């Protein structure tokens, strides 16, 4: 078996190539005589097509060579946010990164995302990340009686926050942020994106509650405009722009 289960049938004729992956592993159980908690690099070689995804490559390793390799994945096409990891030292989704975009002649380095506690291999504890998201009250807040039909919103007002509705909570942004790595106190860019989505929604009335939270010392002022988040976002969200808009709202009181 050389092709992954879901390799494109149309590329059958295209020759495969040998690709090396170096994976930073973490063994929580201490199997095969390792100390529990051992971290080590391991090298794997696979036969793959240039159009295969890094996720396919990881599957080939897991399914044919080493079943103990652990990583999260689900949708396999960049919409569920399960498989953010550091590939060649940059945060990406394994399922949205094709081998041909990576120079497969050199070993491909795969590591867990940085700044969250590693649980096993490429799996990290997402709880602190989701806790920050919950902190910014990511739900519509309104007052007054609920209307009978929909709340009206013009297409322009809808457009205002469109970008930040795309977020799939993959954590690629937050775990690429150098400020987040340093102390882990920072809410991180995702939480600001999540807040932005409601702050700039014309229907929402909780904007000042959220802005006040982001005004905190773990909030938006910690951002040093390093832009790693914007570069890392697999949904192409202009994260730094969203953060800037929140800063602007706090400074001017205008939304």
């Amino acid at each position, binding site marked *: 078996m050389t092709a992954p289960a879901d390799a494109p049938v149309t590329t059958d004729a295209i020759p495969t190539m040998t690709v090396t992956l*170096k994976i*930073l592993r973490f063994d929580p159980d201490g199997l095969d005589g390792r100390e529990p908690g051992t*971290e*080590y*690099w*391991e*090298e794997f070689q696979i036969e793959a097509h240039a159009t295969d995804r890094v996720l396919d490559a990881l599957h080939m390793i897991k399914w044919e060579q080493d079943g103990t390799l652990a990583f999260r994945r689900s949708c396999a096409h960049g919409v569920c946010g399960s498989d953010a990891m*550091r590939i*060649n*030292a*940059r945060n990406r989704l394994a399922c949205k990164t094709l081998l041909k975009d990576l120079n497969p002649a050199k070993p491909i*380095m795969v*590591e867990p995302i*940085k700044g969250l506690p590693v649980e096993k291999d490429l799996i990290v504890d997402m709880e602190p990340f989701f806790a920050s998201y919950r902190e910014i009250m990511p739900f519509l807040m309104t007052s007054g009686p609920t209307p009978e039909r929909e709340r009206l919103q013009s297409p322009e007002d809808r457009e205002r926050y469109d970008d930040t509705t795309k977020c799939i909570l993959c954590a690629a942004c937050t775990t*690429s942020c*150098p400020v987040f790595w340093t102390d882990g106190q920072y809410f991180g860019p995702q939480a600001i994106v999540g807040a932005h989505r409601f702050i700039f929604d014309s229907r929402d009335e909780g904007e000042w509650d959220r802005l006040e939270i982001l005004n905190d010392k773990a909030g938006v002022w910690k951002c*040093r*405009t*390093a*832009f*790693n988040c*914007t*570069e890392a976002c697999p949904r192409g969200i*202009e994260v*730094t*722009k969203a953060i*800037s808009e929140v*800063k*602007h709202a706090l400074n001017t009181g205008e939304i």
Partner: protein
Amino acid sequence: MSPLPTLYRGAEGMWMWVVHRTTGVAIFFFLLVHILDTALVRVSPEAYNDVIGHYKTPLYTFIEAGLVAAITLHALNGLRVIAVDRWTWALRHQKMLVWGVWIGFAIVMAGFLPRHLMHAFGGA
């Protein structure tokens, strides 16, 4: 193989942040020393001249040059950061602005260095 993780490969923005931070710290410590030595003018002219004399050695010449370089970089990038937070255009073109910072830096240093070195090592 060593279990050392790789260094995150951020783009221009991240490296300029590193530069900004390091230059900021460097300038801060220089400033501490600089104010202390200037305070010696209150002690006595001899004491001040004695210490300030060190600024005139080649080693200090380079430190002075480095200081000017650090301030220039920090200042220009500071302007970039301000611009990026202020205007969407600057935000979207922040990488271009990084190159702007380096070009500005090159120009300032090209103006400053020859004069400074000439002062230090005689000549003009």
